[in-house]
């Protein structure tokens, strides 16, 4: 066990993946000599050389498209898209190609590749370094979309993504990169790609969240427990697509009151699908309307500090929404 931040855990998973399987290689912009603009790939170039740690031209469609060809051959590409919003030039390769290759070839071909990308805001990144892109890529059968909320999951989930036979979009919340440390096992381990995780149990209400909002929700839950005796269940979705329906339904049933929290815009966000699943399968167990606390419906997060604070869900805002729902 070593105390590691989220990004150190990701870096560790990459180091181990490259060292245990020669088929694994990393490609992307600035992942080589620079070690990544966030340093997620630090040390890989020095250790594994330019054959396996590849600085690509500035061309995201090619990054993903080349990864598809290499994966179909039998390699295990781990592509980095430098910021989540720069994934959009590769949408065609992701949705029309990677997600559909196994299905369209009747299992003749598959493309086991990982696309890692930092998403989310609260880092003075403005409209183009803060986006939550998950709603665009969830809902495309054949593609998995996952996001870890702590260092232990970050390492184990990335390891699972790399050994998975399916294409995986691996979203890393950039504000989590250095937010907290945890004791991360040094050995290789994997965490299921398709399971939500119960992070806290409590009887008064259920908070369903992912990414940065998970530690925020946990902090809000601790505060409400300490100060007001309100006890919350907190579920980390982990897999944004496909969703873990049984766990979602069970967590909703447990308390009958559900607050869904995400940083992405409300309308059209992943929270809508979560609410729909509950409304389909646990309607009569609900004691209150399903509530969502999300980023506002503006195109993306503004830069100016007061506007950014206005956009971001915070521990305070979550605690406030939890309190209101608990009292409903």
């Amino acid at each position, binding site marked *: 066990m070593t105390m590691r931040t989220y990004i150190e855990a990701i870096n560790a998973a990459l180091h181990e993946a490259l060292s245990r399987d020669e088929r694994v290689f990393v490609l992307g912009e600035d992942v080589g000599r620079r070690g990544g603009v966030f340093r997620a790939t630090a040390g890989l170039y020095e250790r594994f050389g330019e054959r396996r740690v590849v600085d690509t031209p500035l061309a995201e469609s090619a990054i993903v498209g080349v*990864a*598809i060809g290499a994966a179909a*051959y039998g390699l295990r590409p781990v592509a980095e898209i430098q910021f989540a919003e720069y994934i959009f030039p590769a949408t065609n390769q992701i949705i029309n190609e990677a997600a559909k290759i196994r299905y*369209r070839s*009747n*299992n*003749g071909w598959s493309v086991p590749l990982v696309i890692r990308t930092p998403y989310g805001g609260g880092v003075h990144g403005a409209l183009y370094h803060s986006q939550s892109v998950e709603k665009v890529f969830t809902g495309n059968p054949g593609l998995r979309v996952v996001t870890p909320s702590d260092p232990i999951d970050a390492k184990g989930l990335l390891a699972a993504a790399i050994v*998975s036979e399916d294409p995986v979009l691996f979203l890393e919340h950039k504000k989590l990169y250095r937010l907290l440390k945890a004791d991360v096992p040094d050995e290789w381990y*994997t965490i299921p790609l398709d399971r939500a995780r119960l992070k806290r149990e409590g009887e008064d209400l259920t908070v369903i969240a992912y990414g940065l909002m998970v530690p925020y929700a946990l902090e809000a839950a601790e505060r409400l427990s300490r100060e007001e005796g309100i006890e919350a269940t907190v579920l980390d979705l982990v897999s944004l697509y496909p969703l873990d329906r049984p766990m979602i339904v069970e967590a909703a049933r447990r308390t009958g009151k559900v607050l869904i929290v995400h940083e992405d815009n409300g309308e059209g966000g992943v929270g809508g699908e979560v609410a729909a699943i509950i409304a389909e399968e646990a309607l009569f167990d609900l004691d209150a309307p399903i509530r969502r606390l999300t980023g506002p419906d503006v195109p993306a997060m503004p830069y100016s500090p007061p506007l950014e604070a206005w956009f971001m869900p915070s521990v305070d805002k979550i605690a406030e929404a939890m309190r209101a729902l608990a009292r409903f």
Partner: protein
Amino acid sequence: MDHRAALIDDAKAVAIYRLMLLARRLDERQWLLNRAGKLPFVISCQGHEAAQVGAAMALHAGVDFVLPYYRDLGVVLTLGVTPREIMLGAFAKAEDPSSGGRQMPNHFSDPKRRIFTQSSPTGTQIPHAVGFAWAAKYDRQSFVAFVSFGDGTSSQGDFHEGLNFAGVHKLPIIAFVENNRYAISVPLERQIASPDIASRAASYGMVGVKVDGADPFAVYKAVREARERAIAGEGGTLIEAEVDRLTPHSSDDDDRTYRSREEVEALKARDPLLTVRHYLLREGLITEAALAALEAEVKREIDEATAYAEAAPYPDPATAMRYVYAEDGSAAAHGEPRGASRGQQAMPEIAGGGGARV
């Protein structure tokens, strides 16, 4: 036209013609079946056969990875795909090896022949081919990636991004443009402003070659030389074959809305199938009698393929949920790494043609 100058022996010259003929007749049969209401859709190779067969003949079947596009019936037949397999795809039957009836006809795929699965969005296959070429270099294997596409597709961003990537890494790729001067109805002068497409190779530090796509021997030579350079580590080649599209874009198209009948008649008068046949006769490589026998043989093969495919069962809807994700599930992958060194286990090196992959 000169097969010997291309280092093609007489038997191979005849074999090329036979494949061109097979492609043409198979294509024509699909149109008949379409007009008879039996096939909802046809998209043709007619006019491209010489270029396709010439190019594919120069590849090492089962060794090179091939990423054809929807016109490339001649390419895949040359690589060993059978008329029966083609007809199974055209009829969308369960046995269709490309997709089990999931995809439209001519969206070729054949893992054992190293033909990668194709989609319909134009140009996406170019970066995929670069990925295979990358793997050749990564894995130190002697194969090339061959990818083909139309002139219109050279306008796509993926053309540029893919070839640029291949150029930077000097990857063993052959990018083969079948320039028929149309993208559906859009003529070449509305598509590009450069004198041709081959010259765009310079943007990627690649060799660019323009070749008469009605001359299968010249195309063969261009592809063989490109393959030799690629295997020797000298990087990729962009080959532009000038061809004619003798049919409408597809069975859904009506080309009378955008090109004159005179234009089409002029193209038909220089049909490469006729030209090559004439050449073989003139050079004494084949007799009229042998040609007639060939026609009969090809017809028999196509009749058999059609009958088989028409009678074959459709896929069972109970199977339609399969193969969205790996069936063992990602959980199954939580185990050991496969091939702790260089993955040759998963991807054995294949010496000759026709070897199986996976």
